[in-house]
């Protein structure tokens, strides 16, 4: 019980610190922090200038963790991400020495990741999943916590390389960064054009983050809730027994098993944030869009009918809700 309270208060303190630099974007901030607590990478998608980079930078400051940033460009090579072996002069003469790349940080901002070539993008694959980097046949373990926060611009398609499905699936959440409201915009302008910007202070260290992840794992999930989460994932499949009619019509490929893991883990974090000790179906519903939207591949018919992944997720939730009836039924 105390751990749950500690979790919530820690989470809130990080959120407060980020709030000093970021105006609004509450859902995005919460999504990022859920990813952090759930040990999942985040893909941020939004127009330029919406504070994506600022958010990640603020987060690293609030957490007092190592932070590095890679601005992806088409000519970037994998070694620019992972690091490389270089010939160095030492006491015993010349020898190859591994120079660690920017991936060796607690928080990695992969800015405009879709501008890099697939070869470079895939350099992140091992790091994101295995938490290790192999260079020159040698495996280098990344320090925990390791959080990749990638951004991409949905407008500019010229000279970009859409992320492959395998890499997209490795992102815990895909968060859409919306344009701020007029009031928020006003606050942003006021705050950034004034005398001095408020800077987030470090409130949580590395160990606290690792402990938060441990606490999240302890939250129990009831069988009906788990079943509900699995039904959501299965309903996104185009040709499964539990497929929704919308998925059958509009989906090219559905969400992977990682999506189910994501839903449940995110649900656990949300339960703790809500002051509960159990995951509810409502938690899963809230987590559905950021967890599923990048894991569903829509077909041409969906594009023609203007169906977005979020709308499809709504349909999937409706479908599952219909079949999820009161077992007593009176």
């Amino acid at each position: 019980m105390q751990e749950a309270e500690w979790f919530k208060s820690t989470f809130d303190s990080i959120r407060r610190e980020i709030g000093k630099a970021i105006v609004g974007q509450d859902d995005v901030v919460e999504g990022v922090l859920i990813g952090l607590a759930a040990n999942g990478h985040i893909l941020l998608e939004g127009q330029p200038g919406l504070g994506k980079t600022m958010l990640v930078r603020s987060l690293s400051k609030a957490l007092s963790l190592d932070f590095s940033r890679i601005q992806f460009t088409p000519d970037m090579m994998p070694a620019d991400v992972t690091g490389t072996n270089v010939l160095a002069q030492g006491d015993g003469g010349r020898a190859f020495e591994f120079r660690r790349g920017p991936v060796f940080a607690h928080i990695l901002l992969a800015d405009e990741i879709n501008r890099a070539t697939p070869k470079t993008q895939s350099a992140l694959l091992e790091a994101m999943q295995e938490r290790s980097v192999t260079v020159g046949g040698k495996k280098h373990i990344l320090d925990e916590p390791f959080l990749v926060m990638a951004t991409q611009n949905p407008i500019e398609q010229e000279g970009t390389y859409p992320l492959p499905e395998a890499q997209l699936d490795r992102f815990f959440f895909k968060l859409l960064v919306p344009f701020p409201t007029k009031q928020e915009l006003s606050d942003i302008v006021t705050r950034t054009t004034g005398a001095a910007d408020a800077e987030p202070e470090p409130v949580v260290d590395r160990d606290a983050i690792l402990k938060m992840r441990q606490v999240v794992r302890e939250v129990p999930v009831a069988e009906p809730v788990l079943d509900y989460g699995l039904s959501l994932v299965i309903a996104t499949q185009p040709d499964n027994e539990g497929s929704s009619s919308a998925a059958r019509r509009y989906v090219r490929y559905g969400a992977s098993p990682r999506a189910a893991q994501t839903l449940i883990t995110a649900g656990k974090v949300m339960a703790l944030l809500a002051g509960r000790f159990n995951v509810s179906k409502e938690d899963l519903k809230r987590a559905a869009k950021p967890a599923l939207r990048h894991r569903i591949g829509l077909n041409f018919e969906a594009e023609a009918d203007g169906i977005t992944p979020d709308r499809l997720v709504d349909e999937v939730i409706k479908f599952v809700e219909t079949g999820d009836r009161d077992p007593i039924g009176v």
Partner: protein
Amino acid sequence: MNSSPILKSFSRRVRLVRAWVGLSIGLSVGALLAVVWAGLDWANILYAEWSSLGWLVGSCGLIGLLVGAFRGVSATALADSIDRRARLENRLSTAAERSSTSGAFDDALRQDATDHLKGLKPAKLYPIRLGKWHAGAALFSILAASIFLLGNTPLLLGKDAKATRAKMQEQAAKIDHVLKPMEEEAKKGELNPAEKKLAEDLKKLSQDLKKARIDPEKALQRQNELNKEAQKLQDERFQKADQSMQTAQQAFDKMQKEKLEQRMDMDPKGMTGAEMEQAKLDLSKMSPQDLRKALDLERKINDIKQQLKDPNLSKEAQDALKHKLDELSKMLANMHLSPAVQKMFDRMMQDPLWKEIQDAMMELQKKKEELQKLLDTSKKMGKQNQPGQPELTKEQQEAIRKAIEQQMKELEQMAKDLSSDKAMHEYLERLLQALKNGRMGGQGMGLGLGIGLGMGLPQQGAGAPSRDLFFANTGKIFKGKGEKSRGTTEMSTIRGQSRDVPGQNAYIEMRGPSTTGLRSSIPYQKVLPSYKHKADEAMNRQEIPPEHQKRVKKYFESLGQ
């Protein structure tokens, strides 16, 4: 958590609500079935009554109620349901699952669930309310009632039709009166297949009459057919009874002869071996009837001889006995018994055990005669009363019928017992043993030679004593002194032309009352001209098919003769 008293109160409430819903579902299903049944009843396919429809609906409702009340309520399902209804965000279902685990949050989780549960009222979460099933039950019930009413109500009928219907219902009640004992017997399994079928046919006729869904003339025709069938079945029973009686008689005769021989073998009393062999030979040549008669005469002679030994006997009495003795001796002499047999009889008459056997035989014979009388009476009950036949009250008829039924059963059983030599021997041995033990009195020694009418069917025919199905039960018994019953329903076969298929065909000519039951008090000669006139008019108006006009004319001509 699972065994929490709070959850138990929810469980009880769920059972109650389920029973309520189950009742409505059962009633809906029952009412739907009742709609179908009422429809079938209207179409005259399946007979229905108010009570039967009510029973159907009620039974289904009760089944639904019981299923709802006693269906199991799983703790997991209940917790999940409460979570949904009280918006507990799966607290209860998670706590129920982790009721016995010790995770980091389990205690807190259980406490949290209990706290949330405390404020909840079972009746609020599971209210008893009217739903679509209740509406369905009401709707279908109204529909069933409407269909049944429309198919059965006399409100839409005219005055004459109502009167006809009332009469038909009266007749149906009479059939039911006769049918009831038959149905009881059928339940006990005492009717054979043909009798069962007759009972079913009678029931159908009764049902058709109750609903007036049968043409009166057709009903009359059907009733006569059934009466004929009943008569046939009754005759079969009589025949069977006769056969059983024959079997029993043969068994007695055989036993008598055997016992005679056995007794002589055991105690020859002065008879030589040659005499014994001769006696046995002569005995084997005697018919059972002669043997019975001879033994009877011997016995009576012996009795008189014994009486004559009494010194206190008056002179007149002695003379009378001597006279009778002479007569009996002459009768015995006329039977021309061989000397060996005569000697054997003389010897046997001195044997006290043989006397006992003879007494038993006499008793059996007496019983058989009594039952023969019952059989004759029964037969007469089923046929037209003869002149001079004593009039029987209803109670007497019923008593006779019951006595015959009982005796019939016992006779059948006895015939079964005597079905083989071995069985017969065993039976007779038991009988003799019973005689020796002095258990002979009462109950006809358990033999019960009897016959059975067993049918309880009304005997339709002229003068049938107050048992008619379709005619008014006047209680009057025609004694046959030249008085002819009205409403004769004898069937006769007349050759005629079939309407559809050319050639000879048989049809039944009904000679009975023109209405559905009551005998007319007007002599038919008086009404015949007007009916004939009406028939002529109908033929002129082409209301009667041309192929039947000749038959109608012939019918009226026959009445006029």
